[in-house]
Structure formats: C-alpha cells, structure tokens
C-alpha cells in the first residue's frame, strides 16, 4: 500500500507511466498488447514477408491420405511459419495475424461504443436526475437481466447475411455493454455534482453540456478508462465465442474463434492447429486483463486486487 501513497499521480498518463514502472504484470500485459496490436495492424506486411495470405488454398502442404498437414507439428516450416489449416492448406500464421485484426477491431470498437453510450447516458442520468434518471436506472436493470449471449446467438441467425457481420457484432456487443459503464458513471457524477467547482460552473450560467464537457468529463476519465480496459477481454472473448458457435464472423474472414471451432474436429490428430489460434486468443484476453488490473490499482487505489 505504501507504494501507492508514495506515487503522486497528477494525470492519467502519468499514473499509467508510474504503474508500468512499478507493476511488472501490467508491463507484461502492455507489451503483449503492443505486440499483438502491431501484428494486427501490420498483418498484410507480415504475411507478405512470409510469402503467404490467409485465403489461398495450398493442398500441396497437406497429407493426401488424412487431409491433415504434411510434416511434423502441423506442417510448421520456413514457408508456413505456424503450419497450415487441415483440409484447405491455408497458412495458419496468416490466419492468426489477420485474426488478431478481427479480434482487436471488434473488441476495441465495441468497447468504444459501450463507453460512448454508457458515459453519455450515465452522466445525463446522474446530472439531470428526476424521471430521466429513474428511466435510465430501470432500463439498465432490464438490460443487465437480459440474456444477451443467447440473444446474440439467436440474432446472428435471424439477421440476413447482407448485413455486415463485423459491424453487427460491434454494435450488438458494444450496445449490451453500456449499462455497467452507465451505472458507475452515474454514481460518480452524483458525487461530483455536489462539489463546489460544479456548482460554481452552474451558477455562472454554464449549460448542462458545458458542465459535462469541462467539469465532469475530466474527472470521469480514470474510472472510464479502467472499466473500458477491463471490459475489452470480455468483448474479444465474446466475438470469439460467437464465431466459435458459427454465428459470428463468417468465412473466409479469419477469426480466432472460428479457427478454434474448426480445430475441435482435429484436436487428436493435429493439436497444433488448436495451439496457435488458442494461444493468441488466450494471450490477448490475458494481456488486457492484467493491464486493466494494473490500471485499476494505479487509478483507483480503493479496489486493490493484487497487493
């Protein structure tokens, strides 16, 4: 605890830098996020260096009798760094790095949707109060009681395939995330609005929007960043789970969840096909979890989990 007291954190950025120096787990998480992030952004470049792409079939890399990859360890070689997918011979390294792009895109964009909607609704409810507050609180309760995973599975089945799946996933996963953010933001705003600087701004004639932008928002960043970061692994996992069940990202777009789903049938004969996308998915969720834990410890010392 004494370490926390001794580290004065003036801004969110300074607090994060101080945390990364002190907290080795969070640093490991941050490094992993950066590595996977680079893989996601530079997926095309990396696969070009390897000389492959995630869509071309290469049946020459397969064992003609079993349909599994030719060679040891799932066909790992200089040409196919992570081996190939059984039956199609598509390059597994290309699938994994392009899958990182899919996962990060959906995880981060859905979190942005949740945060945006959650902050606006939650801050409005806390600041304005009255019937609006009651409606928001009640709606959030209903949403928290909504069987969202079952609903998303069902929705994936009924929405026509002409609707872009990544966009649908971002909107649906993001939208179901707002109540938990709105709740915290609302309770923060309820305490903030009793403070003198907010009253002063209001008495000087600031509109609710001005109060929100220049008085409330700067004080909401810390909890919102913590909550947002901690919700990313869940969203990445949700996209993978939906793709695993066949109602997420449709083929041929690479997705870790769908690769793992295909690997189910090959787990006894070609475990490496499970290994690479599985480890990638695990590392991504793990990295955001430990990084988010570190952030929470650094920005919100009350809820100290690790020390």
């Amino acid at each position, binding site marked *: 605890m004494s370490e926390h007291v001794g580290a004065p954190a003036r801004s969110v950025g300074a607090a994060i830098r101080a945390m990364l120096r002190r907290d080795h787990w969070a640093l490991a998480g941050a490094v992993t996020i950066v590595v996977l992030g680079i893989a996601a952004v530079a997926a095309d470049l990396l696969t070009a260096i390897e000389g492959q792409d995630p869509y071309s079939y290469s049946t020459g890399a397969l064992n003609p009798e079993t349909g599994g990859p030719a060679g040891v360890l799932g066909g790992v070689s200089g040409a196919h760094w992570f081996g190939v997918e059984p039956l199609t011979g598509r390059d597994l390294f290309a699938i994994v790095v392009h899958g990182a792009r899919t996962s990060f895109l959906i995880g981060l964009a859905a979190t942005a949707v949740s945060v945006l909607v959650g902050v606006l609704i939650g801050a409005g409810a806390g600041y304005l109060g009255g019937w609006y507050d009651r409606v928001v609180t009640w709606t959030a309760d209903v949403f928290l009681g909504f069987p969202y*995973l079952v609903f998303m599975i*069902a929705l994936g*089945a009924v929405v026509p395939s002409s609707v872009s799946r990544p966009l649908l996933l971002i909107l649906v996963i993001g939208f179901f995330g707002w109540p938990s953010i709105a709740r915290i933001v609302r309770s923060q705003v309820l305490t903030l609005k009793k403070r003198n600087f907010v009253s002063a701004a209001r008495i000087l004639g600031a509109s609710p929007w001005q109060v929100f932008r220049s008085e409330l928002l700067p004080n909401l960043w810390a909890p919102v960043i913590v909550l947002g970061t901690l919700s990313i692994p869940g969203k990445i996992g949700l996209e993978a789970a939906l793709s695993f069940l066949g109602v997420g990202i449709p083929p041929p777009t690479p997705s870790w969840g769908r690769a793992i789903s295909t690997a189910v049938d090959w787990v006894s004969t070609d475990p490496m096909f499970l290994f690479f996308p599985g480890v990638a*998915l695990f590392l991504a*969720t793990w990295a955001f979890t430990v990084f988010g834990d570190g952030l929470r410890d650094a920005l919100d010392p009350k809820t100290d*989990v690790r020390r």
Partner: protein
Amino acid sequence: MRALRFAASRLVGTLLVLLVVVFITYVVFYLVPSDPAQLSCGRPCTEQNLALAREFMGLDDPWWRQFLDFLGGIVTGRTFGVGATSIHCSVPCFGYSFQQNTDVVVLITERLPVTFSLGLGAAVIWLVTGVGAGVLVALRRGSALDRVTLAGSVAGVSAPVYLVGLLGILVLGFTLDVVPVGGYVPFAESPVDWAWHLVLPWLVLAFSHAAVYVRLTRSQMLETLGEDYIRTARANGLRESKVIGKHALRNVLLPIVTVFGLDLGTLLGGAVITERVFSLPGLGGLLIDAVTQRDLPLLLGCTLFAAFLIVLANVLVDLCYGVLDPRARLT
C-alpha cells in the same frame, strides 16, 4: 403486511422485466426481414402455399397482434389452423416449433436435465474450490502459494471455456485416456455413469468460473480482515477459526452471492459453449439446432427461458441476502 407488499412489488417488477424481454426479442425477431413462413414452407414453395403457411402461423396479422396472441397463448394455449389439420399448443404455450412439430416448452423441458446436471455440478465445484482457495490465500497473503494462485486465477479468467475444454479433452481424454470426453447418460439410468461422463465438463466449466471467485473472495477477505469488528472479535479472545469462519466469512459471502446469482442466470449462455465442446445434448445444443434451422419460435422460446433463469437467479440472490445480512431484509 409489509412483507406481503414487498413480495408483491418484487413479483410485479419481475414480471415486468420478463415482459420487456419478450417484447424486445419478439419485435427484433419478427421485424428483421426473415420470414418464418418461408422457412417452414415446403418445396416447391408456391405463392399460394406461402400465403397458407403465413395464415396458419398467424403471420398475416400485424406484429402487435402476433405479440398479444403469443402472450395470450401462455395463459390459454393456442390453436394454429382450423379443422382436422389444426395444431394445438397446450398451456403454457411459449410457441410452437413448426419445424420439429412440437411445443417449444416440451423441447426445452426434454433438454433441461442435461444442462442442469452440467451447470449445478460445476457450480458446486467452483463455489467450494473458488471460495475455499480465496480464503486460504487471503490468510497467507504474499506467500508463494498466494502469488501462484493469483497468477493462475488471472490465466483462468482469461482462458475461454472452450479452450480449457479442448485442452482437457486432449490431455485427460486422449493422451491419458482416464475420462470419457463426451456423451450423456441420464441420472435415472445409472448415477455412476452419469457422474463419470460429466466429470470433465464439470471440471472445465468450474475451472473457468472458480478463477473469478478466487480473486473476489481474496480481495473481499483482505478488506474484511482489516475491519474494526474483526479486531474486536479477536480482542475478545475468540478463536481464529471462529473469527474467520463466523464473522469474516459472512461478510465475504455477500458479493459472492451476487456474482453467483449472475453466473447462475447466465448459465445457459456458458452451457451452449461447453455442450458444443463435449457434444452434450442439452439446451445449448437445442439453441444451436434452432439457429442452424432458423427455427424462430424455438429461438424465441430459448431466449425467453434464458431471461426467466436470470430473473429467477435474481430472486434467489435477494432471498440469500436476507439470510446473510439482516440489514437487507425487506428493503
């Protein structure tokens, strides 16, 4: 009187939540441009057949009328069509699967034992091990055991349940060949085989959840041990086992009950994935079948049932709160 009014207001609130869930689900499912009549209309599907199918299923009515019919069916049952070819869906009618020619309620109750066996068995394991390990490492804070358990629990929180499941199948099923990797034996047939076939799914589902409980129990325990009343209890000369077991644990259990309620409520969601990995014929499998066959009434029924589970879990949590925390009674 007060208790009665409390119970009544809770009941009304619960029904209201369920009604909103049905409404949203209904509107979304029936407004998206996919036609249930088209899907269950035989081939070749002529305009005439399609119109007949629509009329039969009540799809030619406006959506609000369909919604009211659906609600009415729960209380009074429904009959689709007239005469000899009509289909009756008995009370409580939560829809009729035209593709499987069965009441949705029947389909769900048929599969329920599998999902319940899976979920409740796993819940017992994760509660006992998660809370137990959490208390243990909180009392040995900073030790090697504490650090290893914490690192392991972060890994457990991060690993998706299907990944753990496939790993379990690979190691315990195929490589060591100690447990069956799939299939379900009804409890009534042979309780031993029932448990034996479920060992691996239980462990896998429990592992993913237990990690959350370890972290939660540990942090809550550490916070509670710093409270004044614990110091007072110790100062009064109470044995340590009594301080922990009676005074501290009661406080620690409150947030755990909340999380447990949420987990029980969303059990169906988690079971979908576990059942797919271990090929168990439960509700999750039913849901996936409904998805692949675009069986809208069945999808609606499953979603509604999932909402019902969540609401039921919330009521149970409230009851537990009343037992654990006298302050929470009747508020």
